[in-house]
């Protein structure tokens, strides 16, 4: 099954970033029996006209790093267990030879952005007087003057016009070419801004009405496709701007209400089957104020709990039984809505504040990944030439200069640290791990090691080395494997055992 994941606008990119981190940790969608969904490929498509958006750039870089790392670990294998388990591919990667040409990127190429201003995009100068007057009623002057390459600056009415051309794009055609029955579609967007609020309903409309579109394949599969969406409600604050009020925190609720009314009538109403599953997530506790930036300087917002929670929505959607999304004849069922709640309504969120199901899903994988991060940072290099590194295939010192290792440690794990620190510094503060703590015994916030006969059990690099030595000894699994796979798989198995045996059980 392929999960086509449309991440729209800045919030879409940020939620996607959290999903990348969860995927790197090995969090996989589970079916109703708790088993990983088989043959899953995630195809993220970022829709954001604001290409200089820092959040978008950071997410794209992480996606590319993820791809490099995963390809080196598993190649094209789908059903794997370990770090970077979810296969994440571009549209280009899964396209067969067609007449559609596409860049090998996760970013949707929006032709509208090629126009300088929204006024030019709609051909305002060529309109007759009556149409110009109508346009003036629908759009404020500053909206007509809006530069298209900085996004829609909190104006869904611009987005709903500009994004309507998506259906004619090569990306949409390529998407329709590769979409097959059994695949699913998920949208991530915010409802209180411009790009996401407008993009979500337009994309859904175009998919459900695929039968009416020209140059589109698999129309029947598309019009019946299981569609899910994450609608992010207001959760962040902006620093005020005296001179520029195009985006204002005070408008967020009003915009949300308007959009929700619109969605109710077109997407998510009680008898509406355009969107089968909708996840709402937001927070009445607002984030630390972000720098006011309508686009000119590249929006860069800190990671936030809402994005982490939101990233679990597509995973839950992918694991849902088809019977909850389609009727026996294959037609989509009406919308079911989901919300998320913390187990404890606290400002400092750690694993213990999450509900049992969430903990079950992410606790062990995230702890494993964090321990890997600490191990690679503090222990691995000194172990080269000893123990498991000397078993075939040997891990030699030049491994640390390989593209894989540098991508993992210098780039991906650097992004991981930023993500953790940003979530920690935000409000609510997410402190799943004790930031800056290299001692593995104290790495997990408010979760210690178990008590043994002689005090608390110890967890350090040597404990990992011993466990990895034990697993690696005469293990035929690795004889034909790459060193990259061997290292990360050994660590995965060692960490699984060590977490079970040495850390307090909070699940």
């Amino acid at each position, binding site marked *: 099954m392929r999960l086509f994941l449309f991440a729209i606008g800045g919030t879409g990119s940020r939620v996607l970033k959290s999903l990348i981190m969860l995927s790197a940790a090995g969090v996989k969608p589970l079916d109703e029996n708790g088993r990983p969904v088989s043959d899953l490929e995630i195809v993220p498509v970022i829709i954001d006209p604001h290409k200089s958006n820092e959040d978008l750039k950071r997410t794209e870089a992480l996606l590319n790093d993820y791809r490099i790392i995963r390809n080196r670990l598993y190649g094209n294998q789908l059903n794997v267990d370990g770090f970077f388990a979810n296969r994440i591919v571009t549209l280009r990667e899964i396209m067969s030879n067609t007449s559609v040409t596409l860049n090998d990127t996760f970013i949707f190429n929006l032709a509208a952005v090629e126009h300088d201003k929204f006024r030019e995009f709609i051909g305002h100068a060529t309109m007759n007087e009556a149409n110009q007057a109508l346009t003036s009623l629908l759009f404020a002057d500053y909206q007509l003057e809006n530069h298209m390459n900085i996004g829609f600056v909190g104006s869904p009415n611009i987005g709903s016009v500009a994004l309507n051309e998506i259906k004619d794009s090569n990306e949409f055609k390529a998407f329709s070419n590769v979409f097959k029955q059994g695949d699913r579609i998920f949208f991530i967007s915010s409802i209180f801004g411009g790009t996401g609020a407008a993009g979500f309903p337009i994309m859904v409309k175009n998919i459900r009405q695929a039968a009416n579109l020209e140059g589109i394949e698999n129309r029947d599969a598309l019009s019946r496709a299981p569609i899910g969406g994450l609608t992010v409600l207001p959760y962040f604050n902006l620093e005020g701007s005296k001179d520029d009020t195009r985006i204002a925190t005070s408008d967020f609720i009003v915009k949300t209400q308007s959009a929700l009314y619109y969605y109710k009538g077109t997407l998510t109403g009680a008898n509406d089957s355009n969107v089968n599953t909708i996840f709402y997530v937001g927070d009445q506790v607002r984030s630390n104020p972000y720098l006011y930036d309508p686009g000119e300087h590249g929006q860069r917002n800190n990671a936030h709990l809402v994005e982490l929670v939101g990233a679990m929505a597509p995973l839950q959607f992918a694991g849902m039984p088809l019977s909850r999304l389609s009727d026996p004849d294959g037609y989509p069922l009406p919308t079911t809505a989901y919300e998320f709640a913390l187990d404890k309504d606290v400002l400092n969120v750690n694993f213990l504040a999450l509900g049992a199901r969430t903990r079950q899903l992410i606790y062990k994988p995230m702890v494993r990944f964090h321990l890997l991060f600490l191990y690679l940072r503090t222990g691995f290099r000194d172990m080269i030439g*000893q123990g498991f590194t*000397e078993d075939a295939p*040997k891990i030699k010192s030049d491994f640390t200069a390989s593209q894989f290792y540098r991508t993992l440690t210098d780039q991906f794990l650097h992004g991981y640290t930023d993500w953790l620190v940003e979530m920690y510094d935000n409000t609510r503060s997410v402190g799943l791990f004790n930031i800056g703590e290299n001692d593995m015994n104290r790495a997990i916030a408010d979760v210690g090691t178990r008590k043994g006969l002689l005090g608390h059990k110890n967890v350090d690099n*040597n404990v990992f*080395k*011993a466990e990895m*030595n034990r697993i690696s*000894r005469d293990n035929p699994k690795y004889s034909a494997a790459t060193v990259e796979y061997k290292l990360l798989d050994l660590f995965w198995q060692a960490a699984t055992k060590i977490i079970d045996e040495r850390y307090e059980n909070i699940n």
Partner: protein
Amino acid sequence: MKHLVYLITGIVLTVVFFVLATGSAFNIYERLYYSQGFNDALYNHNMYPTMALITIAITWGAAAIYYYAINSVKFDRWYHWLAVCAIVTLLVPIACYTYNDAVFASAGLGYIGESIVFQLQNLLWAPLLFVIASFSMRWWSSNCRHTPFPQ
């Protein structure tokens, strides 16, 4: 399979050592040091087999302790192995000398000088047997199988 070959080879070499250390026609102890009265006394009191067994027991025992009892990631470098080898190299002559001395004392004999010189040859046999023992059994150690140098 390869590891089993190493183990069997090690056992065979150790048995060969024992046979050559206890033989009368060809005795490796006497090849390296011979003093008429002293070696006759060793032979007559049947001390060669016991000394060979002490040497084998200490070297194989030390290797077993290093690879399977200690078996620690904190003690898995070549210099840790060398330290154990050095201890064995000292321990074997001391143990053999103590044994010789006890037997000679009970028999009313006095070969202190010869005994000391004779035990110097265990500075050769002890590390040799420790190396043989190490390469026979190290393969199944979880943490030290690559010590003193990788497979």
